[in-house]
């Protein structure tokens, strides 16, 4: 598995840090307790395409949104998390 960073090109996996599901959104500070429990602990954990955050710590230090198939490790897309954040499921 290699990731093609939009800024640096194809790079080895060791340059990146995985930070999990990119579709999660931090609740409002006064959101109910259960909203915070869901955000911190509960995950969809899909078998198939997964939008996830990777941090290119040994390269450009950009946060990236990677859409990757968890069944095959095939990478569908890599984009900047700032320019094109993953959609929140509850928005759609």
């Amino acid at each position, binding site marked *: 598995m290699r990731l093609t960073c939009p800024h640096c090109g194809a790079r080895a996996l060791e340059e990146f840090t995985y930070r*999990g599901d990119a579709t999660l959104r931090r609740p409002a500070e006064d959101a109910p307790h*259960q909203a915070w429990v869901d955000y911190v602990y509960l*995950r969809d*954990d899909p078998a198939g395409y*997964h939008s996830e955050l990777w941090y290119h710590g040994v390269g450009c230090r950009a946060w990236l949104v990677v859409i990757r198939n968890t069944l095959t490790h095939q990478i569908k897309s890599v984009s900047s998390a700032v320019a094109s954040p993953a959609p929140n499921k509850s928005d759609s």
Partner: protein
Amino acid sequence: MSSDHYSLFSLLRESLRGHAGWKPAWRKASPQLAYDVIIVGGGGHGLATAYYLARRYGIQRVAVLEKGWIGGGNVGRNTTIVRSNYLLPGNTPFYECSMKLWEGLEQDINYNAMVSQRGVLNLFHNDAQRNAYIRRGNAMRLNGVDAELLNIEAVRNKVPFLNFDNARFPIQGGLLQRRGGTVRHDAVAWGYARAADRLGVDIIENCEVTGITIQNGIATGVETTRGKITAGKIGLACAGNSSLVAAMAGLRLPIESHVLQAFVTEGLKPFIDCVTTFGAGHFYISQSDKGGLVFGGDIDGYNSYAQRGNLPVVEDVIEGGMALMPRIGRVRLLRQWGGIMDMSMDGSPIIDHTSVGGLYLNAGWCYGGFKATPASGLCFAHLLARDEPHEVARDYRLDRFGRGAVIDEKGVGAQPNLH
């Protein structure tokens, strides 16, 4: 007369009869229309649950549904280590319960599981790690678990060929649990399957659950590739597929599925006689009775259901091995594989009822499920039979995350890939 009880006498008798009287270890059962309890997942934990349900709790209309074949999942993919060297109060009694069950397992299920209490040695490399291991050893001993702190000379006597003078991680000693060791993993699956089968449990292979029937908030049965089956209670023991099966009942779990790789070398003469772990270098090793060195390290660190990993972790594990014991460098690697781990948000398991009536969950074993197999089965059977948690599993509740009562041995927070 068939030879159904394994013993020296049955072996002698069958030797004289050309071994024609052995029965299959378990029947190829077909699903019936209804059961008291259905266990989804025919891995080690599911089979052990069915066995203890029938044996200790007297529930015999039990089916174990397995989408593949017995022994094809994580119970056949792990590195066979058993130990009970846990620190936290929620964990120590549970894993010690498991260790005690391992010690009596072969007599209990009449199956040679090659339980080998060869010792588990965790190395430390600096004062802070020594203090942490002293604390862990004390916690274990307070719970009646054996633990012994070895100084550098004692470690040298035990495993003299380690690289004691590694520039980054010089070995200063280790924490030894002599009762820890290894168990033949396939035999655990086969032995529990055989013992459960003899008590009337239906072990149904090639039967994948595709849906969970819920009526008025109560789970009443499952849809499978071999038809609908109704059940009084349903227990999920699906390891790496827990999130997917729970989603069939509309549940989201505090779990991410990750891939862990393991490795085995060509067979060697006796090489290392205890399980040795090099936590600082992400490497642990033991030798199988067949002679192969069995070793592994960290999970790959990203969500995966692929049952195969990537090369960076292969390199990392093998670098750790070379740093610890340079003499493995000339040994040839025979096989390498991956399994899917149900990584929970605090690194500890869940044995609990769910918000759906009649639906129970056994999940979140991370990369440490094998050692827990007997106690997991016993505690899940207790929960299914009595509707209350077993004494040693009372902290493994699903609502502990919301209550802030997490059991985080490693202290890294809600980061499943770091546990």
